[in-house]
């Protein structure tokens, strides 16, 4: 454990405030002492379970057959790769996360622009608008499933009926959309909050100057505001992706993995606690982590680029 922790810090000496060798060394030590508890906690709570996951993934172990357990080499990986569930769940995760993130960001942008204007009751409108993000996801999924999207008594079908459209069997015909609807509903306020902060951080003088120069509102938005918002958009997309990649609640509550909504989290849960296939589930877990590491590296590189202007390595 200690080895794991100190290696990264030791590789390069710090470029500190130049107040002499002695003091610099002390400062580094103090810094390490400050960093240590958090780093250790994180390692213990996330890395040790993962190492054990690798161990379990090499075991033949179905909890329903307690007598038959043992080392099985890479068999679990073979059956995982042969089964095809992993790839289709990976696809489902990308589809659900991707669509929801894009939709949330676009809608979030719309609401940010609308709520950045000054109008009667703006404070109240903002307050109402952030609410979906605060609602407990389990509660949101339950309410959407039973109150809004129920085929017989849901408000969505009632609304469709008002405008003369036929009712929709949401869960049967459009399972993926039901999940995306709920996630988009919850994460639009999230994107909006970040983008609103971006809009408010804009330099008003520049905007006024553009207006004086006779640039239209749309052109100003396109050529000044949007580029300014870019890093906010990146942050919103990245954070929403981190959270949505793990999405579990609405799937467990609304679709139970049917119709292309079996995301990786749900697949892992199902293999582990419905199939009770410890070994196989662990193999799925290891595969998932490998894929996430690749995704995370790419995403984080982007993130660091976002922050590079601020000087991360000073």
């Amino acid at each position, binding site marked *: 454990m200690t080895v794991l922790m100190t290696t990264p810090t030791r590789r390069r000496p710090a470029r500190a405030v130049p107040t002499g060798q002695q003091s610099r060394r002390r400062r580094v030590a103090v810094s390490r002492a400050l960093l240590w508890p958090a780093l250790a906690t994180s390692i213990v709570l996330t890395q040790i379970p993962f190492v054990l996951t690798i161990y379990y993934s090499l075991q033949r172990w179905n909890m329903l057959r307690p007598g038959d357990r043992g080392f099985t080499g890479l068999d679990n990986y073979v059956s995982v790769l042969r089964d095809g569930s992993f790839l289709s769940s990976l696809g489902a995760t990308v589809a659900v996360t991707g669509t929801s993130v894009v939709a949330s960001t676009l809608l979030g942008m719309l609401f940010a622009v609308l709520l950045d204007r000054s109008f009667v009751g703006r404070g109240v409108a903002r307050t109402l608008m952030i609410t979906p993000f*605060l609602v*407990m996801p389990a509660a949101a999924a339950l309410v959407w499933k039973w109150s809004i999207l129920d085929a017989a008594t849901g408000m969505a079908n009632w609304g469709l009926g008002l405008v003369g459209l036929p009712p929709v069997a949401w869960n049967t015909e459009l399972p993926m959309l039901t999940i995306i609807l709920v996630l988009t509903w919850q994460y639009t306020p999230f994107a909006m909050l970040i983008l609103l902060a971006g809009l408010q951080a804009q330099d008003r003088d520049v905007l006024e100057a553009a207006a004086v120069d006779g640039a239209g509102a749309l052109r100003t938005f396109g050529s000044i505001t949007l580029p300014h918002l870019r890093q906010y958009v990146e942050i919103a997309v990245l954070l929403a992706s981190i959270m949505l990649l793990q999405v579990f609640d609405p799937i467990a509550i609304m679709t139970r993995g049917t119709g292309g909504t079996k995301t990786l989290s749900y697949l892992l849960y199902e293999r582990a606690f419905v199939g009770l296939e410890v070994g196989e589930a662990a193999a799925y877990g290891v595969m998932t982590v490998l894929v996430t590491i690749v*995704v995370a590296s790419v995403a984080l590189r982007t993130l660091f680029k976002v922050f590079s202007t601020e000087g991360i390595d000073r």
Partner: protein
Amino acid sequence: MTSSRLRAALITAVTWVLVLMFFFPVAWMVFTAFKPEHQAATMPPTFAPDLTLDQFDAVFARDMLPYLINSLSASLGSTLLVLVLAVPAAYALSIRPVANVRDALFFFISTRFMPVAASIIPVYLLLQSVGGLDNITWLTILYVGVNLPIAVWMMRSFLAEVPREVIEAAQLDGARLGTEIFRVVLPIVLPGVAAAGLICFIFAWNEFFLANLLTAQVARPTPPFLTSFVDGRGQFLAVLSAAATVAIVPVVLAGWIAQKQLVRGLAMGAIK
């Protein structure tokens, strides 16, 4: 002039319609909570029900209070622990010079990328082997693991805003580390600490996956308790709505009241 005012009024109207559409599911849920059960799931919907508090009585008769208390202790406890760990770490990463800030940060944030589900089996078996299932302390500790990366990340951004001159001045004055942190830096970033705390609290309060799998009765928090209102054999929408309303009140109120912190926290204060 009139045309541009008309346009402004129109945009305002559209804004309000859209906002109310977004808010509708919450409003409808709260409304349903005050209906008698037989008027909750009807087609067409019942807009003039016989308003009643029966469902809230039923919710607390089903003993919701202990679940709320569990949620509260896991959320508050984990948030406090997270802050105690995250603030010094972020301080070391942003103000004090630590080599390879990037590696440490990368590590923290990457732990948040990993699906919790990927290592749920060992976590479950480990907890079981130490008798830690259905135990609120262990659930709290796990929430620390989940929220720590986000908090470190946020706090680092807030701390990066603290003018270096302020700290250097304090250091030249010979201020000791404790003084430096508590007297000089902390007051400046206090809003940031509040923001990070709020976000961690929200995430912990709303967490379902671990809560559902690792608790049964004694330590069970609110989110998995909610799903138990889905009745296998009868009407349940009104009482479910009432339970959901009670469950979301603390976080929604906190979010409404601390909107500024929420914005700061989410925008991570950093990007300026």
